[in-house]
């Protein structure tokens, strides 16, 4: 496997959908290529960061509307 192939199948690798044989080739490449190790590490870090996007403070009007809706719903 070369690096240009690795960057194209990384999503299947990380999603666990890469066929066994390709997974082996992928891992074998990583053992030899520190650059691709960096690449995979950056992709993992990116995914972690996406999962941690902070909650924007919801505007007061939106919050009021939602709470109002919730109270209405509660009343039935």
């Amino acid at each position, binding site marked *: 496997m*070369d*690096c*240009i*192939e690795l*960057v*194209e199948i*990384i*999503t*299947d690798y990380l*999603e666990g*959908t890469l066929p066994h044989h390709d997974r082996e080739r992928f891992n074998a490449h990583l053992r030899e*290529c520190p*650059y*691709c190790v*960096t*690449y995979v*590490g*950056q*992709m*993992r*870090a*990116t*995914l*972690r*960061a*996406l*999962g*941690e*996007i*902070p*909650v*924007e403070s*919801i505007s007061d009007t*939106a*919050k009021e*509307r*939602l*709470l109002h*809706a*919730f*109270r209405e*719903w*509660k009343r039935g």
Partner: protein
Amino acid sequence: MFVKPSKHRHKSSDGRKYYTMAENRETDERRLIASLRSGDECAFTAVVARYQVAMTRVARGFVHDEATAEDVVQEAWLGILNGLAAFEGRGSLKSWIFAIVVNRAKTRATREGRSTPFSSLVSLETSGTEPAVDPDRFLDATAKWPGHWSQPPVAWGADPEACLLHSETMAQLKRILDDLPPAQRTVISLRDIAGQDAESICNALGITETNMRVLLHRARSKVRGSLERYLTNTEEAARS
């Protein structure tokens, strides 16, 4: 000798919980649904805080602007509240919530006569080839190691994850997401922000798993690439 019952009976001696994470999540979710049904305002505020951002990003994939997306989410919450009594908990609460957001967003997009239906966006955004990384960054066929890096990625500091969690980088990450093509943005929001599994995403969006994965791959590769450019520029600016 009398042994006082431990307050932390759910923990074993090595501090690990007996429950698996999935079981914990299920218990948490059941408790949350019960609180919502009983009209607990705190539970409602908490669940809004947890999902609001991801819901807005998902809705944004279908409608023209942020304000409409927020409106769609508002509508979705009403749908969620009204459906709560009937929710049987066969799937997860989260999948159900996002399926409702997608439905409302689709309806709104149709009603507003958005010029491009989602299916057209999908074919547009999955067509052709779109290299994950600029091909110029790899050695060409004449080199000794063709297809290997000529301009390899540079490490993002000693701890790339810590580096990304800076608030400025997070703000940049949101701008990067906004710049993605809409179908790619929707898929990456559902998968990586909302943490939905592939099957739920395909069902909610009505797309094939292959297309889902192409959209996800293109979106993720772009986000990593944009972060790389941003972090390199910031570092250069800091040095000069």
